[in-house]
Structures are given as C-alpha cells and as structure tokens.
C-alpha cells in the first residue's frame, strides 16, 4: 500500500492549515496545490545544469541590487578622491569612480561585485552547457521547440546583458571593448552610422552611453530575461520534463522524485551550493580588477585587452577574418562587419531553427518525451561536434595573444593556425564523431547479441581460445516505484486532478461568459473533456 487512505479534515487547524484554508476559500487552490506538490521530476544529474543558470540569475539579481545602491551611472568627469592611491587626482567618469568606491570603500562591495561578475560568467556558461545537453539528447524535439527558441533567446540576451555589465565601470578595458562595439555598429551597411550615433548619442564615445547602458543592463534586458525565464520554466512545468529511457520508463510516464519534499529540498540545496561556489570564487579569485586598468582614455590601451569569455568567440572570429573590406560606388562594407554581425547572425539563426530543420529532414513529426543517447543519432551528434569545434577554434583565437605569451608561440602562427583550423577542424570533428557514434552503436549491438565479455578465457579442445560472454541482464529500476498521489481521494472527489490549472482557469473564464449555455446542458467543450470536470468556480 503506497497511497494513504483519504484522511479526514483536521478539526482544530493550526496557523498553517488556517492559512491554507483561507487561501483555498478565495482561490480554490487545493487540487492544484496537491497536484504540484506531487509533480514528478525525473532524476538525472544532467537535468540540473539549467538550474545552475537559474540560480546564477537569482544571484545576479541579488548582488546586482546591492551594486545599484552604490553605482553612479554617469559619464561626468571628476577627479578621483577615494582610497586607492595610484589613481588619486586622476580624471575619470563618475561611473568609474563609484566602481572604485564599491571596490575599496564599501563594506562587502568588492566581494559582491566579484560574485556578480563570476555569476555572469557562470550564467552564460551554464546556459551553453544546458543547451548542449538538450541538443545532444534530442530534448528540443516536438513538443519542446518553443522552449528551445526561448532558450536560444535567453542565451543571446545573457550575452548582451553580460556585455552591458562589463562595459558599465568605464575602465580602460571595458572602454576598449565598447569602442570595438561602436565600430561594429558603425560597420552595418546603410544604417550603421545611424545605429552607432543613436546608441552613443553622437560620434564615439558620446557623452551618455553609461546611463543608457545602465538602463539596458538593470531594467530592460533583465526584465525580458525574467519574463523569458518564467515562460521557460512554465512551459517545462506544463509539458513535464523529458527523461532518458530506462526500466519502466515510457513516452507516457515520468518517473522520479516528487516536488515535495525531495526535489524541492535538493533544489534548495543546489541553489545554496551554486551560491557557495560563487561566493568562494568572488572572495578568492580576483575578477576584473578595474583599478589596474585605469579610466578609459581613447588614446590608451592595454595589451591583452579581452572581452569576457562569452564574447571571446566573436573576438576570435574578428582576429581571424581576412582583411576583406569592400569599397565601391562611394560606399564601404568594412571587414569587421562579417565576423561580428553576419557570422553570429548565421550561427544563432541556425541554432534557433535547428529543431525545425531536423524535423524536416528526418520527417519526424511525432512528439517525444524520451531522450536519445548521442550515439543513437550520429548525424546530429556529428553536427554538434562540428559546431563546438568551430566555436572552440574561434574562442581560442579570442585569447591567442595570451596563449602566445604564456606558451611562447608566435602570435602570427596562432592567427594562421586559427584561420586554417576554423575551416579544417569542424569537418574532421564531424567525421570522427559520427564514426565514433557508429562504432559505439555496433558495440551496443554486439553486447545485445553476444553478451558482455567476462575476461574468462577458455581453451577449446581444438586449441582455439575463446572468451566467455555473459548475457546482458535486463535493466532494473533504481528505486522502489510508487504512484504519484500520496493520498487517495474517492473517485469523483479526485476528479478534477487531471484538469490543468490553465484549463481550469480557462473554464472559469468561459463559465463566466457562457453561464446559461453551460447550465442548459452539454456545451461541446464539456463533452470532449477527458474527465468530468467540476463546474467553474469552487463550491
């Protein structure tokens, strides 16, 4: 017996039960609450990668709020008078001065600034790893294409948000990055100069990019991110999580831990551990020491000026791209346009439409809830490896000066290696990965047919040596299986459990408008419902 009998109502409720009943009287929350507490999430470590991104976002918001209390988003130039001696008296923007103040003269300022920056790096990094997990296991397939699109949007916005934040302190490093960004905006054919002038309020550097970036960084993009994350999670919740095939697992069920308590407790713990990791990084590993770069000055630059890692691939593509600037008919298309606007445009578009392309080419229009192993889809895995290898070549090239210095390699050799590499390596990666997948498939088949090698060698009477194989045993579940519902209700009373909250809300609205028809008998919606739903509103 795994489902408890229906309990009777507690006669003298405590404060928690009282609150619950008060809420229920107003919203009819019990069925939905019970359903969601009993919701099942499959249990696999790779399903937690997206959570890293979610928790990083939460930490970004928390630390970001702290930073906004002290940051002064202003281009106005003032002489610095804080406690960092090597910059005393130096002219700088208020933005840079206040970032120095956060770092040196605000309690917990530097640690939260560093946590914020590490969290930004981790936010985008975990989105990328999560995306790879979703890609290689085919989790993006129908019915989850919309969530894939939202995810790609989150990645792009995360990168933009990170770049805006990196640019806010107005130090020499970020100013150099922003200078390049202005050149990129300016490189777009036809509208480029206008785009750049509108963003920077005139010719670079303008006098108002900091307040503008600030609004983008703390209001506009985070707002959209928040909305998209909400939609992403809402859709995930509604559609239920995918799972790997396993004993007892089918396209029509989910097996795992219920939200309450195991999943919720583990997730809380994981949030805390993500925070702990970021706190340790923020305290022990210095990141973006803006005081060493000095204030932005268009005449100055530091060698090894790099963007944060998630822009690195664009820096790399820009370094590798040949000097192809097209001039003619009184117009110029700058070389910088192709690797910084066209290339990411193509890459992210391909990424976004991949589920639809794959569905078109495979002709697979069925919904899928069970994941695939990468080896079972050699072509997709090969494409993924190809994309990753291309990205990696660009990424490494984005840091080729630091690599050249660290390992004593010629910078020019690095550039040429990158130029050749980004063309040669991806096809090799595709071929090798696809072959590897096919090889693994063949081995799987062999094990299925002949069993697993035992390492025990027998000599046959005719002198031949053979290895003994044992059959592969059928998989068994990891844990005891129980039904979802902890507490059973008699049929009828439990009846509305299947109607989703959305459907019930929809019915409430419909019921409000078509009450008479509803009362008269059998409107079509009711007749096709999967279960005899309760009338709109609670009794």
């Amino acid at each position, binding site marked *: 017996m795994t489902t408890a009998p229906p309990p009777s109502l507690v006669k003298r409720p405590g404060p928690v039960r009282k609150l619950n009943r008060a809420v229920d009287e107003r919203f009819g929350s019990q069925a939905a609450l019970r359903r969601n507490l009993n919701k099942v999430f499959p249990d696999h470590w790779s399903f937690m990668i997206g959570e*890293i991104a979610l928790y990083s976002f939460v930490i970004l918001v928390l630390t970001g709020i702290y930073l906004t209390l002290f940051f002064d988003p202003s281009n106005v130039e003032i002489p610095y008078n804080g406690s960092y001696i*090597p910059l005393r008296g*130096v002219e700088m923007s208020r933005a840079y001065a206040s970032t120095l103040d956060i770092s040196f003269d605000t309690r917990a300022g530097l640690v939260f600034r560093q946590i914020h920056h590490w969290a930004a790096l981790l936010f985008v990094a*975990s989105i990328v790893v999560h995306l790879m997990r979703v890609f290689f296991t085919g989790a993006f397939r129908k019915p989850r294409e919309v969530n894939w699109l939202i995810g790609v949007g989150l990645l792009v916005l995360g990168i933009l948000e990170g770049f805006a934040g990196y640019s806010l302190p107005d130090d020499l490093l970020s100013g150099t990055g922003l200078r390049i960004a202005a050149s990129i905006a300016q490189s777009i054919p036809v509208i480029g100069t206008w785009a750049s002038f509108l963003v920077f309020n005139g010719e670079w550097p303008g006098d108002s990019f900091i307040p503008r970036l600030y609004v983008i960084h703390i209001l506009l993009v985070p707002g959209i991110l928040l909305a998209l994350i909400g939609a992403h999670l809402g859709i995930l919740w509604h559609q239920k999580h995918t799972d790997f095939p396993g004993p007892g697992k089918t396209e029509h069920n989910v097996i795992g831990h219920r939200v309450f308590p195991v999943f919720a407790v583990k997730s809380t713990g994981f949030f805390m551990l993500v925070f702990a*990791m970021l706190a340790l990084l923020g305290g022990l590993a*210095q*990141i973006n020491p803006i005081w060493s770069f000095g204030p932005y000055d268009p005449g100055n630059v530091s060698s*090894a000026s790099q963007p944060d890692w998630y822009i690195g691939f664009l820096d790399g593509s820009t370094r590798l791209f040949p000097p192809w600037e097209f001039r003619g008919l009184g117009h110029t298309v700058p070389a910088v346009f192709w690797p910084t606007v066209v290339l990411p445009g193509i890459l992210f578009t391909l990424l976004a439409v991949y589920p639809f392309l794959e569905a078109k080419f495979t002709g697979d229009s069925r919904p899928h809830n069970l994941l695939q192993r990468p080896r079972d889809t050699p072509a997709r895995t090969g494409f993924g490896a190809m994309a990753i290898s291309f990205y990696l070549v660009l990424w490494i090239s984005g840091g080729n000066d630091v690599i050249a210095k660290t390992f004593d*390699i010629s910078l020019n050799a690095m550039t040429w290696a990158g130029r050749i590499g980004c063309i040669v390596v991806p096809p090799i990666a595709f071929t090798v990965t696809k072959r590897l997948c096919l090889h693994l498939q063949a081995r799987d088949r062999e094990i299925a047919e002949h069993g697993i090698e035992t390492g025990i060698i027998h000599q046959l009477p005719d002198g031949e040596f053979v290895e003994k194989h044992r059959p592969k045993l059928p998989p068994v579940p990891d844990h005891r299986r129980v039904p979802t519902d902890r507490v059973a209700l008699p049929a009828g009373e439990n009846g509305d459990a299947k109607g989703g909250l959305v459907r019930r809300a929809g019915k409430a609205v419909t019921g409000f408008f078509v009450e008479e028809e509803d009362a008269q008998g059998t409107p079509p919606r009711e007749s096709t419902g999967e279960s005899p739903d309760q009338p709109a509103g609670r009794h």
Partner: protein
Amino acid sequence: MSDMTASLGAARASTHRRRRSSAVVLLLALAATGVLWTAFAPRGTAQSTPDANEAVRQGRALYLQGCSSCHGLNAQGTGQAPSLIGVGAAAVDFQVSTGRMPLAAPGAQAKRKDPVYSQTQIDQLAAYVDSLGGGPKQAVVTRNALDDADLAQGGELYRANCAQCHQAVGAGAPLTYGKYAPDLSKATPSQIIEAMRTGPESMPVFGPGQIDDASAVAIAKYVRFVTEAPSAGGSTLGKYGPVPEGLLAWLAGIGGLLAVCMWIGARQKV
C-alpha cells in the same frame, strides 16, 4: 630596510593596513628588489675619479673575454651583433644586469635570466662601453626620488606609454613573430628607467625630452606598485584578465558544479 621598501611601504601604509603575514612576504620581496638596486644605485658617478680609468681597463678585459666574439674586438659590431659604440652605460647595465647579455641562445628575442656578471663587473663593462662614446648613463634611483615620485602621475604615464605593450599591470604581452614585451615583475626601478632611455630590442626609446627623470622614477614606482601590491580581491589569476577568468569559470565554476550535480543525482548507496 632598503629604500624601495620604505618608499613603497609609506605610500601604501596610508591606504592599506595590511595583515602582518602578507606584509612580511611583501617586505621580503621588496627588500630583495631593493638590495639588488641599491647595490648599484650609486654607480655612474665614478667616471671622473682616478678609479674610472682602472674600471675602463678592467671592463675592456671582460669585454674582450665575454662579448667581443659577437660585438667585435672594438665593439664596432659584426654581422651577428650590433655595434656598442654610443649605446651608453645604461644599455650595458640593463642588458647585462637582466641577464639578457651575454645571449644564451639566438631567438626572436633575448630572454631575462640570472645575470652572469657581478654588479662590479657590470659597472666595469659599462665604464668601458661608456668610454667608447656617449649615450645614456646608468640610472640612479635614490630613495628620496622614489619617495617624492607621484604614484598617480606614474600611473597615467604608464597607461599612456607602457601599458599598450607591457599590459596594464606589467604582465607582458606578445608582439609579432615570437617577440614579446616582457613581464615587468622582476624589473628593478633602475632597469625600468634604463630600458626607457635605451630602448632595448623592440622597445622604443623614451628619452628625457619626452619623459623627464622625475616622471621616469614615477613610472618605475608605479610598475613596482602594480607588480608587488597585494591584490584586493583574492588570487590575481596571473593578472591576465578575462582569459584566465573565463578558464576558471569553466573549470572551477562549471566543472565544480557539474560534479555537485553528479553527486546530487547519484543514487544513494547506504
């Protein structure tokens, strides 16, 4: 207590009340640096004394033994190495005291290593080369000059003239075809100034007409500060900025959290 220690220590003491242990480490590092440069700081004034001729004579002996095979018997230069006539004592002091000369192995660029000659010998070599024709004198960085130098001005000049090659905090950076701007963490104030005045190898010359002596000392003071100052926010990750930061975010951040994921997701075996 060396001059360097005193001046830098004084500059920092007003901002940073540092933890004692880190201060000790810093003091040791500074003391080592300071000893190194104070050892030869008073040099360069010996030219007119009777000893000067003796120094030139001994320097020439050292030169013939260790340098002439490449630079020529009269320092006139050969196909392998440039002429040393007119390069000045500062060039000799810089090249030999940083161990770049004598050259260990041909390459894109001479590497810094432990000096082969003692400071006395270097001074003699410098006196000999100086006697061949003028050029920048060895740098003299007094304790007072360092004390008086304006750290903020040094920083501004460093960012305007040096950071583009040597990187914002003197970590160095690559140039074309295997050449590089070296890491400045081991450079003493006098070596920094001598490098500015003589423009060794790829480095441009920054003469006194451009950066006067006081400003040069300020730059040296700033370089010592950024290479030695305790970091405010934990490990500096090699001071190379976003590249090592990104690497750490992936290795420790993502790597560590994936390990946590696996631990959470692992089946409990009791």
